[in-house]
Structure formats: C-alpha cells, structure tokens
C-alpha cells in the first residue's frame, strides 16, 4: 500500500484496518503523533488528512491511500511554523504530550480563519484535552501567532 506522509511516499505492507496512528508510530517511527486514548476522545493523535484534522487512532490506513497526511514532523521539523514559534515564545507546554495534536488543529484553524477570535479558538480547540491545563497559553499563542 502506498501512502504519502509529510510529502514523502511510503510503500508499506500492513493490514488495511490498522489505524493510521500505529502505522505512523510503529512502522514509520514518526512518534510525534501521540496515543492518548485510542477511541477518538482526547485528540492527542490528530493529524491533517488532505488539510483536515482527523484522529489518526480511529482512521484505518486503507482510508488514507492516495491522500496526503501531515504530522507534526511535517508541519516544520525545525519548528519554524508560526504556531511553533508562538508556542516557543510563550512557553505553552507543560508535559508537552498533547501539544503536537493541539498545534496540528491550530494549524488547521488558522488555515481556515487566518485571524481567529477567542470564540473561534475556543470552539475549535475545545476538541482537545490537555491534562496539564495549558489551555490559556494555547489560546494566547494562537492569538500571538495571528496578530498583525
């Protein structure tokens, strides 16, 4: 099966119903995408599929054949995406574990709404759980990254 992750094409031999999350983590060693719950609740595993945020724990690999997958490693491996810069500037993370998923959804949010309001951010980002409670900093960082 051929899949495209972060603009690289991979030929992999796995069961068609294996969730994308495990393909990324165990087969491609792209461990930036995290496992939090495995059942679509926490959103730690969020990746972009053709530009839309999806839960990689709940997407069978066969579904992404021919589609483009972007993980945190593909956003900017050097951390130069405006959101990554904002996260660094504001020291958003505590344990950091939920942040790859948070940043991926925030990237989708600002691709859709370049200047999101607090309400836009709350609505979109409330999909995610941060057990350390960094929500305020996440919101501040998105505003910081999108200010004039």
């Amino acid at each position, binding site marked *: 099966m051929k899949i495209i992750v972060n603009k690289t094409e991979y030929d992999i031999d*796995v*069961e068609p119903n*294996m*969730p994308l999350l*495990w393909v990324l*983590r*165990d*087969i491609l*060693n*792209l*461990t*930036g*995408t*995290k*496992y*939090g*719950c*495995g*059942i679509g*609740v*926490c959103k*730690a595993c969020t990746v972009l599929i053709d530009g839309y945020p999806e839960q990689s724990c709940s997407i069978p690999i066969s579904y992404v054949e021919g589609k483009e997958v972007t*993980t*945190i*490693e593909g956003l*900017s*491996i*050097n*951390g*130069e995406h405006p*959101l*990554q810069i904002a*996260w*660094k*500037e504001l*020291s*958003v*993370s*505590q*344990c*950091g*574990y*939920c*942040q*790859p998923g948070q940043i991926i959804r925030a990237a989708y949010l600002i691709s859709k709404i370049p200047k999101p309001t607090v309400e836009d*951010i*709350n609505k979109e980002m*409330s*999909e*995610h*759980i941060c*057990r*350390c*409670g*960094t*929500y*305020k*900093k*996440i*919101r501040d960082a998105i505003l910081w990254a999108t200010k004039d």
Partner: protein
Amino acid sequence: MDGITNLSRRRFVFGTAVTIAGVVSGFVFSNEALAELIVLDKDKKILGLTPSIWVEITKDNEVIVTVARSEIGQGIRTTFAMLVAEELDADWSKVFAVNADGDPKYGDQSTGGSTSVRTFWMTLRKAGAQARQLLINAAAEIWGVSPSDCFTENSFVYEKNGTRKLSYADLIDKALELPIPPENSIKLKSVSEFKILGKAHKNIDEPLFVTGKAVYGSDFRLPGMKYAVMLHCPYIGGSLLSYDDSEAKKIKGVLGIYRLSEGIAVVADNSWSALKGREALKATWNPGSNQGLSSETIFNTFRSLLGTLPELPKSTIKELNATYEVPFLAHSTMEPMSAFAFFQDGKCEVWAGTQNPQTARNSVASALGISRNNVKVNVLYSGGGFGRRHINDYIVKAAKISKASGFPILFFYTKDDDIKNDYYRPASMHYIKSGVDSQGKISGFYHKVVSQGDVFYVEPPYNISDIRNFTEKHNFGIPTGPWRSVDYTQNVFAIESAIDELANLAGVDPLQFRLNIAKSSRLKGVLQRVAEISQWNSALPKGVGRGVAAFEGYGAYIAHVVEVSVSDEGFLRILKIFAVVDPGFPINPENIRNQIIGSAIDALSTALNAEITIQNGQILQSGFHNYRWLRMEEIPDFEIDILTTSEQPSGMGEVGFPSVTPALCNAIYNAIGLRIRKLPIGKTPLLKSDDKKNHYEKFHFNTYPNPFVSKVQIEVIINDFNKPSLQLIIYDFLGKKLLEPKLSNTGNKFYTELNLEVYPPGVYYAVVCLDNKRYSFPLVKTI
C-alpha cells in the same frame, strides 16, 4: 537555526525517536549517542570540562546541566538549568539539560513532594559558581593576572582592565590542569545580582515539544524491538483461572503470549497486532475476596467508622458537625503508562518516563532476580506524572516481558488499562466537629479522617486553641498512591470548607475570619492581596458568588478567590479565579503562573467531575469519556499575583491545587446557599429548594429511571391542554446545550426517551420551556 540539530550527539537521545545502533561493552546495548558518552567520559579532554557531576562545559561553548529530577510538566529542567546558568554567568541560549540516569551518585532522584527546588537550590548554584571560579582561575593563569582582575559574562571570561577575553570553551584545556576550587571558597551571588533567576525564562524543552521530537517513554525505538500489552484481571485483587490463546496466536504479527503473575502479556511486531492479539484472548478470572465490593460499601464503612468526637469546650455557643467526602481518583495522565526494557545476558536496560528511577531500578532488579548493578534506568520525558509515576509497575512489567520473550520490549497501557490499573488517590471521609464561642472565635476543632490508603491529617494553619486530630484506616485492597499535593487534596477541602461554615456561624466575613486567625504573616499577606485583586468587598449580582480558601505547604503560601454564577436552571459557571502565591523567591515567574493555572484547572476538573467508582470489585471508569477533564471553552479567566517575600524559593508543582476546590464550594454556597460537602460537585444538582414544585399549576414532570445509566424516559403532563407549545432542552451542569429532543404526545401527555450513553456521569438538566418560562429538572447519570 533550530536549537536541536546542532546539539552534540550526546543529547541526541533526548531529541529524536530514531537513530539507535550499536552495542556498548559493559551494558546491554545503547544508542549511538550513549556509546559516545561512555567512550568520551574516559577522556574528559575530548569531551569538555566537568567540574562536578552537575555541569559540563563543551568544546562548542555550551553548558550542559545534569538534572536529577524527572520532567513531568513542572518545568524542572528549565529551572535547574537556570540555577546553574545564573552562577556560571552562562549564555542562556547555549544552556542545555540532560537527565541523570538513576545512579546513586546523584542522590535521591525521586520527584515528589515539590522538593526539587528546595533540595537543589544551593547545590546547583554552587556547582555553577564552582565552575565559574575554575574558569576564572584558568583565564587568570593564562593571562598572568590575579583571578580578582577577571570577570565573567555570557560564557566568556574578561580581563577587568584590559581587552582580553576567552570563551569558556577556550579555557577547557587549561582548566583541566587546575584543581577544582573547594566548595568553601565559593561565593554565591546575592539576589540583587541575579540576571537569570527571578526573570521569566522560556522552557528549554519547548523546541522539542512543538516539533514532536521530545522522546517520551512510549516513543523509544530500537531496531528489532517488539511491542507488548497485557490482559489484566478486571477484578481488584482477583486472579487468573484459565485462558485460551489459540485465536490470539493466529493474529498476524503476534509473536508470543506469556503468562506472568500480573496478567497475560501479548508480544507482537507492532502495537496494533498486540492489541488485536489481546482482544482475541479468552480468559476466566477469579474475582477474589473483593467480589461484591462497591463504592457504596466503602463509603458506608467509612461512615460507620466516623464514631463520635469529644465534647467541645463549654464556651461553644454554636456547633458545626459536618462530614466531607472525597472519592478515589485516577491520575489519568495524558500519556498512558509505558516503558521500554531490554533484558539480555543477565542485564536490563530501561528507558521510561518515571518519577523515581532509583526505585524502578531496585524493583526491576528484584523482579528479574538480578543485582541492582545490572539494571540501568534512563529517564525520558513523561506525558504527565501527578504522582502516578512514583509507582513503577509498568516498568517492572516491561522488564519481565522482555525477559520472558527475549525481545527488546516497548510495553504500554491503553487508556482503559491506565485508569483501571492505577494507584488511586485515596478516598476519605472527614468528620469535623467544631464551633464558635460568644466572641465569634473557634472554640475547638476536632477532625477525624477515615480513609482507605494513607491520608494523614493536616492541621488548619490558624490559631485555634483546641485542635484534635484522629485518623482511622480501613483497607479494602484498592491500590493507592501519591496524587498531586497528596494528603492536602482531601484535608484542605474539608478544613477550608469547615472554616467557611464556621465564619458563617460566627457571622463574620469568611476572608476576614481567616485573616483574624491566620498564624503566619505570609498567609495573611496572600489573603490580603487576594482580597484586593478580587475586589472582595464589592457587591455581586444575584446568583453570583465568591469563595475564598487559603493554603500553606511546600514552603509556599497561597490564597484563592473563585467567582461563580449559578443560574436559575442550576447551571454552574466558573467565572474567574484569583490566586495570590507567595513562593518566597520566584525563580521563574512565568513557570509559576503556568503551574498555578495548570493546578487550578486540575483541581476544577477533579472537583467538578472526577470520581473512580467501584462496583463488583471492578473499576467502572475507562477513559476520558467517562472520567472527564475540562476543555478550553470551560476554563475560567485567571488573575495571578506573585508576592516576593524571602530569598528562599519553594516548590510550585502542587501548591496551586488544594485551596481551589474549597474556594469553589464556598463560592457556590455564597451564590445560592447550598453547601457542597461531597465531591465531585457535578453529582449534586445546584437548584434552590424553593424552586422545586413551583411548576405544579402548569404541568407535571416525571422521569424514569432517575438516576439512570444511559437511557431515561421523560414525561411532561400539561394541565391546560390548549397550550401545546412546549419545548424540552437538555443541558450539562455547566449549562452547555446538548440536545433538543422531539416530544411525542397522547393528549396532554408529552414524552420521549433520551439516550445519554455518550455523556460522562454527572448531573444534567432537563429544561421545560412553557409560556416563556423555563423550569429546570435534574437528571442524574451514573456509570
């Protein structure tokens, strides 16, 4: 340029998930980076300068600080690096941290009790100052001047009255020839000389977090490694009777199935195959002695053990007899427990997120029957700790599975495993007997704690003449362990709620009441300041309330004011949290704010929703869907103020937790006069008693069953049949609209069956809208 790509390979292991190769003599295996370290350590001239075990200066003029505490989200790697960098006058942009590996030479590496900063405050500063003095001595010798003619700045030594300067890296060779300055010759900076400490500093791990490069326990990868999960007994204290693995073995990728004392391990090529294999296992279990054990039995037993407390002093004119209840809690870290282990030739190497690498080392050694010297535990990032990672059950399992299978093993818990195999925050019941005298003073304060698991009593931080404490434990066999702020989570809820009740009995404002009796001037200080920033004495609209609570511990002082509104329908909104913390000396104010806000959200989430329930000897919760955490849209505004009152710092990872819950309950009382003595709050409908039954003249409202598990039938019978414009809306207890179900009717009877299966347990409200009026009825969902 990215801060990581130019790091030496030594640090590479903390920066990337891949690139592991090679076998190092003397240890089972290691990665390329570690191999380099072991070889280079023999010849410090090549590597750099290590004046102590805590600090190293590299040839690239970088400073590497060894951190002997685990990063679990409290920012300790940044804090420790700051302590060294300050006294070393290091260029902060070139300061990095590596984790110590559980070697006893680093002293106790247990991360808990918020002790890290207090333990290392002097040690690390001295290490920095010692390195700095050594570098100055080296420069002085090269230049032929006195050390007192030199000064340091940004990782360079300068000549005071000259133009010469040398980088720290340039001084390594010379410094290696010189004696290390004795500790008693070292002079530390005074607070007024600090350039790094006390200023907001960026998290040194953020570049790794935001690129996905930080390696957590579950991210460790090694060629040839396998993945493992375990089928655990669903009954607490139960055991395996028999199992059939014939179907599991047929699953593609499954390599082996092993029966261990902890459960049945499935080893496979990847996580997915391991999970599929586990699903195909058939097992029968012996529930053991806990069959029939339920939360209800536990709390009933607690109640029966409360007994009576002594008579209060004669001066008592008003008495308080209150019982407060707190449930078991799971830690539910974002990253379920996981560990990598490789057992080979009688040795075992572990890579994991743990709060206690040294006990992990001992536990692995005894589980495998090998010497401690043959176990190495490397600390990786932890996706949250909160006390959970003091217990190293998952590391021992990883090691045992590696030994049984012969493979390098990444063992992991699913979220469900993680919640069901936790070491829970102990549940407890607190009977407080207290009262006030004719002057409005507390006459006596008697507190009995009944718990399963250790809950030591805590004394109120107030001047009370007659304080008596009693504890009693009853063991039901539920595994318990430390939980963020440990005994304080339960005790401070009970005590600070009771103090509020006593203030009401005395007819004194609750904040003033605390100020009158606070023992410590620093506690008074935070109370006074929180009164100012929250405008404590200003009037509030109807349904809005304020509550206060205070706490001292971990060397710090904090006061919280929580502002809430409770609508006529019972919807609770947490509007704002004011916190004033007195940490002594604030090392990294930005991190303090992060910790205070994070702890508050942790406390709110648990106070509102969290409870581990036991039924038939089994834990019922299984994930974030039924063990709920607050989301971004649900968090309040925050205003945090930091007071600087001393030159001693304190621990900040836990202090922000205990007083939030009582302040919240006190605020609810202030808003609607309803006293919450039982957590989580989300189990109690917040409706004023006078609101009940005022709908009878218009309609009758019936529910069945209520409490319910997933489905509930609702019936509205309207008295005046000519008014069918009726609407039913279902809300959660924070007022979020969930459903607007369609109603069927026969005559004046309107009905529907709701399925709330996907929602977490707790209170919901069915709001009947009729004649432009809203009538709210609680629906109680249990698990």
